[in-house]
């Protein structure tokens, strides 16, 4: 029997597991293949929806489903997080003390927020990258009577376009609340332009200027003083704020950092085309967990997962890999005023986003509902 173990039940892990269940339907049914998913939680969160929760456009319950209901019934599922990953032996030890051995391992443990690595950031700033954070920010924004809002971006972070999206949607929101004329939005970004992708920065910079949104680039957060309400950069700039919204720095999971050689920060060393853990041919890395210099985004996870599904199923059925990951990423960008754009690229095709339209925004809203089909490996 071939045993496949997927560590992590988020977007990447769910798409891999469900995709394999579809591709290996016969093998699952006749018992020659077994798929197991282990996760730290029994819930599945649609993370891109947190942006909409922040502005009251969706409710929490619309973003969360039971993980068991997402997974194919034949997949074994345990809420029992990994505490040690032995990639050489292809064995995982979990919190309950159980061990799982396998023939193919997929590590899809995602990323976590580490605002505590910047002094004062966790205490002084809101963030919308968790359900609790998005709800708290939502409530604060509803009561906001005007003032200086700093939108602060730290590296590395997942969802690369979220800083642009939150800023544009915030501008709309303050206008709807009637406090835009009493407010100032200041956007900080770590590199020398308003977005890492040049074409996105080329669109956003004049748009920000048109909307009166100020920006401070080459701003890498050194510390926040929650009492004085100031944020200071390594580059020596200090900004005052009335409301601080941060995209905090991220790391990979501690178990990856502790278990995998070379996994600085919890990012596992990954072959950018095969998606193997470097040095292995039967351990794959998927989603945010990789150390590939690529967007940490849902679409990246999705396209990587599709590649891993094709490859593991081909290895089991035919003893050979099927294809390489081509580096594809596709991200919608909410640009405010009920409009949106999208950007896609891969290892050989650079990004070239189109101008925002209402149609793309509406398609994004539709995708927010269709996501659950993606998680089930159907879309």
């Amino acid at each position, binding site marked *: 029997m071939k045993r496949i173990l997927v560590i992590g039940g988020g977007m990447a892990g769910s798409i891999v597991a469900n995709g394999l269940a579809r591709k290996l339907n016969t093998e699952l049914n006749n018992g020659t293949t077994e798929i197991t998913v282990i996760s730290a939680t029994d819930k599945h969160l649609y993370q891109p929806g947190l942006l909409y929760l922040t502005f009251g456009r969706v409710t929490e319950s619309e973003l969360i489903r039971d993980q068991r209901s997402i997974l194919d019934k034949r997949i074994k599922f345990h809420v029992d997080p990994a505490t040690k990953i032995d990639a050489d032996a292809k064995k995982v030890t979990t919190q309950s003390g159980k061990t799982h051995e396998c023939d193919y391992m997929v590590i899809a443990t995602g990323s976590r927020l580490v605002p505590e690595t910047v002094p004062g950031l966790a205490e002084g700033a809101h963030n919308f990258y968790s359900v609790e954070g998005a709800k708290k920010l939502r409530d604060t924004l509803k009561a906001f009577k005007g003032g200086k809002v700093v939108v602060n971006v730290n590296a*590395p972070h997942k969802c690369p376009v979220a800083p642009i999206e939150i800023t544009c949607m915030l501008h709309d929101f303050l206008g709807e609340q009637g406090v835009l004329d009493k407010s100032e939005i200041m956007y900080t970004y770590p590199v*020398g332009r308003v977005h890492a992708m040049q074409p996105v920065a080329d669109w956003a910079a004049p748009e920000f200027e048109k909307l009166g949104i100020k920006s401070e680039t080459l701003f890498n957060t050194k510390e926040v003083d929650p009492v004085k309400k100031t944020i200071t950069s390594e580059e020596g700039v200090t900004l005052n704020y009335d409301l601080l919204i941060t995209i905090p720095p991220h790391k990979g999971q501690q178990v990856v950092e502790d278990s995998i050689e070379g996994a*600085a920060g919890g990012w596992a060393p990954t072959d950018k085309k095969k998606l193997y853990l470097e040095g292995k041919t039967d351990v794959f890395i998927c989603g945010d967990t990789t150390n590939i210099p690529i967007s940490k985004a849902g679409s990246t996870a999705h396209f990587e997962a599709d590649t891993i599904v094709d490859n593991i199923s081909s290895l089991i059925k035919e003893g050979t890999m099927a294809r390489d990951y081509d580096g594809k990423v596709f991200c919608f960008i909410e640009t405010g005023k009920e409009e949106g754009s999208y950007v896609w690229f891969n290892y050989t095709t650079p990004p070239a986003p189109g101008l925002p339209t209402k149609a793309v925004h509406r398609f994004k809203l539709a995708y927010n509902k269709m996501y659950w089909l993606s998680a089930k490996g159907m879309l």
Partner: protein
Amino acid sequence: MSERKLIDARGAACPGPMMELIAMLKLIEIGDEIELLSNDPGTASDVPTWCQKVGHTLISKTKEEDHWALVVSRAK
């Protein structure tokens, strides 16, 4: 001093070479080095400018056939 870390950001569109460098600098010890490979034309000027502004050390900047190789040491 640990072994030099390599970031091969050739062809990396997002988040791009500078962001990858900034992220990796947070993970290494003071004195350790990163070699960044990039074919993004701005990297060759952005990285030295930023290092000087923040206080990290640019060890070397080399033009290869189709990319730049920059070595940066974490100074603080």
